[in-house]
């Protein structure tokens, strides 16, 4: 028996709620996880897989204040290949890279990025949008 159902029955036993209310609450508790899992599944299956990672940088610090734009589109296939290649980095070099990234405030263990969980990682990138707006400059990172 789940904790929610037990709580509802205890409230019913204590006379805090009526039998009809308890029935409605139990029905709602039973329905909620199914609905949530269904909606997430439908959403993720309907959404097309991202093909590219786009980085757009706009900065108004060029000559005579003219805007400078940098637009980079990286195919996900290239990212996959890059991670596979990173998986071949020898352990001592990997530790040095992790240490160097840690010094710069990026605490990621590169050894944890494996080809097995790469697809999951790329799927999660679909939801990623990073926007930085700092006065004259703007950086956008997103998947498309």
């Amino acid at each position, binding site marked *: 028996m789940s904790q929610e159902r037990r709580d509802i029955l205890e409230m019913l036993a204590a006379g805090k709620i009526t039998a009809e209310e308890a029935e409605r609450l139990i029905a709602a508790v039973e329905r909620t996880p199914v609905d949530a899992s269904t909606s997430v599944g439908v959403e993720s299956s309907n959404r097309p897989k991202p093909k590219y990672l786009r980085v757009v940088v706009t900065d108004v610090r*060029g*000559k005579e204040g003219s805007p*400078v734009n*940098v637009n980079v*589109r990286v195919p996900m*296939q290239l990212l996959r290949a890059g991670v*596979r290649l990173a*998986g071949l980095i*020898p352990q001592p070099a990997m530790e040095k890279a992790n240490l160097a990234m840690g010094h710069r405030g990026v605490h990621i263990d590169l050894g944890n990025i494996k080809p097995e969980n790469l697809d999951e990682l790329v799927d999660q990138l679909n939801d990623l949008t990073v926007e930085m707006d700092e006065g004259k400059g703007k950086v956008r990172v997103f998947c498309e």
Partner: protein
Amino acid sequence: MLTLKFRKQGRGFRLWIPLFLVWLLLLPIVIVLLPFVLLACLFLGTKGFRALAAGWQLLTGLRGTHVEFTEAAHCVALHIW
């Protein structure tokens, strides 16, 4: 196909370079470097075949890459089909 685009003060040009020509130019360098790469793999304990496969995937994964830099009337762009 590799497309390079340059633009400066309203004038510019595009360059279309077939990728196989680039690979042909790179082939001798790859052949020369291959024994060293395999030796390095052997020395570092990495599987040479996996390294070559990853390198090949990296090359084939380049398709769709786009890099563009624009500043006022200047523009440099690279696109790989």
